[in-house]
């Protein structure tokens, strides 16, 4: 397919349609509304279901209903919408039906603003709903990667019968980049053997997240956890840049990782042996790969567009084996490569001590007493 210049939100929508999306339900919210608008235009052209719901609460429950029929279904929103969808996400996870959710993250908390952010990391990665389950979470750093991950997200959701998030910070949703879209896939004809469709010529089926007997609910929880364990074994994704001889490792996902890559290249030109580790799957998190890096690196620098939410997972992965610093911008601010470059220079010239608290040092720097 030829490359086209496309806005991230539009490209993600078109990628989902080409992945065989059968139904989309959503609610307008900046900075993802172009995704909904593209669906409004294209889904009816394809004879598929599009509906603008009355709220994110309704949208996710429409997704839940359609998912119960075995249809490929998705929604998209931003942080405040994820908060409202938390209920439905938990029901979808508890019922073990597949669905894809795109979160185009904006500044928060509260109403925040509409500038790019990675503030939903903790909310999305650590559950996005009550009860015991893990969603699978993928984070692109370019429009092309967003397109590629959307295509995979449906297959992964169906394989593990779970919720798959694609978390793009607002800049991925809003910027235009050249992108190669995949060939359209045909709609699936067969339905999974758990789907509801009307009990014609077979016993009636029920899809529920209600298990009144604790011993049964425990078995369901264990089954969900078992499937998550398989996802942990199979679905870890990350990208490595200049790591072969790196003494210092910058870690960042999405746009923060992309900005950090420019800084890493500039630092390399200055002779600093630094590389970049960019997690693509935020859940399952690449714990082992980071643990391996921690054993051979002199120091880590975690860069995020939040207050150090992924930092805590990196610390858990590193198990204290490498000293660490953190640099973050918040509230819709995007770090410039020069800011990250300066942090890399300092890291190399004056490495952190093993007991240094990365967040405390950063906070003291950002907001002196």
């Amino acid at each position, binding site marked *: 397919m030829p490359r086209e210049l496309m806005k991230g939100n539009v490209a993600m929508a078109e990628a989902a349609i080409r992945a065989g999306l059968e139904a989309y339900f959503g609610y307008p919210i900046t900075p993802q509304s172009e995704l909904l608008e593209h669906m409004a235009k294209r889904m009816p052209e394809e004879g598929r279901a599009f509906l603008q719901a009355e709220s994110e609460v309704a*949208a996710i*429950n429409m997704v839940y*209903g359609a998912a*119960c029929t075995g249809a490929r279904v998705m929604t998209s929103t931003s942080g405040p919408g994820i908060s409202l969808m938390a209920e439905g996400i938990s029901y979808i996870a508890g019922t073990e039906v597949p669905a894809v959710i795109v979160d185009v993250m904006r500044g928060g908390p509260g109403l925040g603003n509409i500038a790019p952010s990675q503030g939903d990391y903790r909310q999305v990665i650590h559950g996005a709903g009550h009860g015991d389950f893990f969603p699978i979470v993928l984070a692109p750093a370019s429009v092309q990667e967003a397109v590629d991950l959307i295509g995979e997200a449906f297959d992964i959701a169906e394989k593990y019968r779970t919720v798959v998030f694609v978390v793009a910070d607002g800049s991925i949703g809003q910027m235009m980049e050249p992108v190669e879209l995949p060939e359209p896939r045909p709609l699936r004809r067969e339905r999974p053997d758990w789907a509801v469709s*009307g*009990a014609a010529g077979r016993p009636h089926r029920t899809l529920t997240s209600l298990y009144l007997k604790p011993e049964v609910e425990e078995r369901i929880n264990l089954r969900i956890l078992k499937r998550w364990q398989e996802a942990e074994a199979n679905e870890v994704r990350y990208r490595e840049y200049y790591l072969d001889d790196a003494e210092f490792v910058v870690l960042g996902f999405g746009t923060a990782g992309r900005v950090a890559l420019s800084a890493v290249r500039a630092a390399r030109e200055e002779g600093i042996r630094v590389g970049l580790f960019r997690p693509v799957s935020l859940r399952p998190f690449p714990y082992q790969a980071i643990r391996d890096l921690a054993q051979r690196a002199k120091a880590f620098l975690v860069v995020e567009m939040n207050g150090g939410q992924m930092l805590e997972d990196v610390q858990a992965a590193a198990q204290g084996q490498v000293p660490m610093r953190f640099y973050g911008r918040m509230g819709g601010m995007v770090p410039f490569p020069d800011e990250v470059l300066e942090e890399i220079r300092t890291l190399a010239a004056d490495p952190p001590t093993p007991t240094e608290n990365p967040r405390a040092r950063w906070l003291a720097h950002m907001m002196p007493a």
Partner: protein
Amino acid sequence: MTVAAPPKTKHNLKLIYQKPESLTDSPTHYCPGCTHGVAHRLVAEVLDEMGLREKAIGIAPVGCAVLAYEYFNIDGVEAAHGRAPAMATGIKRVLPDRVVFTYQGDGDLASIGMAEILHAAGRGERITVIFINNAIYGMTGGQMAPTTLPEQVTTSSPRGRDVATQGFPIRMSEILAQMDGAAYVVRRSLHDPNNIRKAKKAIRLAFEAQVRGLGFAMVELLSTCPTNWGMTPIEAMNWVRDHMVPAFPLGDYKVAPELQKLRV
């Protein structure tokens, strides 16, 4: 002239009444004197009579009917509290030739699910809604509902519902009948056999509305909750007649012209 012998059972008895195919053999958990069982049976009879059992998908609510999918012998799903109309919408939009219905109580439909039911009606969503109004929260143990009558004692209005601080009962049929997308909105009662027969006809028409693609359809059924009202089953039936019917007048609030001509 010879007359065909009536069908005989193995005990040489004539079968005149049986469980509809659309109900399972599972015993229900409903309290003695509760009208959920009656409402379930009416829905099942209508599905049988219209030949819809194999096309039907039911959405159970959160409330006393939370396990309805175990009692209906049809495909079913269990919604989050109040979200059944949204879930039904998701199902109906991808399977438009199936018959999709929600079965919801007053807390589910008129309190936490108010937005979902209003917008489903506003969109003219081609679903059927069975709305059980018993003026109380049953499953959680008898708290005040949006339909609780003024001065009615519940566990969360222990001195009786004080309209000055706790507001007035909400009449859903009257509200939903205002929606252009609604094809059929009526209120019936289950407190005596005559009203039960009328309720069944209404349920039939509410499914006819969907099958004919006319729009949103809802039957509100005034129902009993003897356990949480603190009454015997007979007292509860009488309380519906004497207190609920005056507050929630029975009648046809919206009937599409295509349904007015229909004889069922």
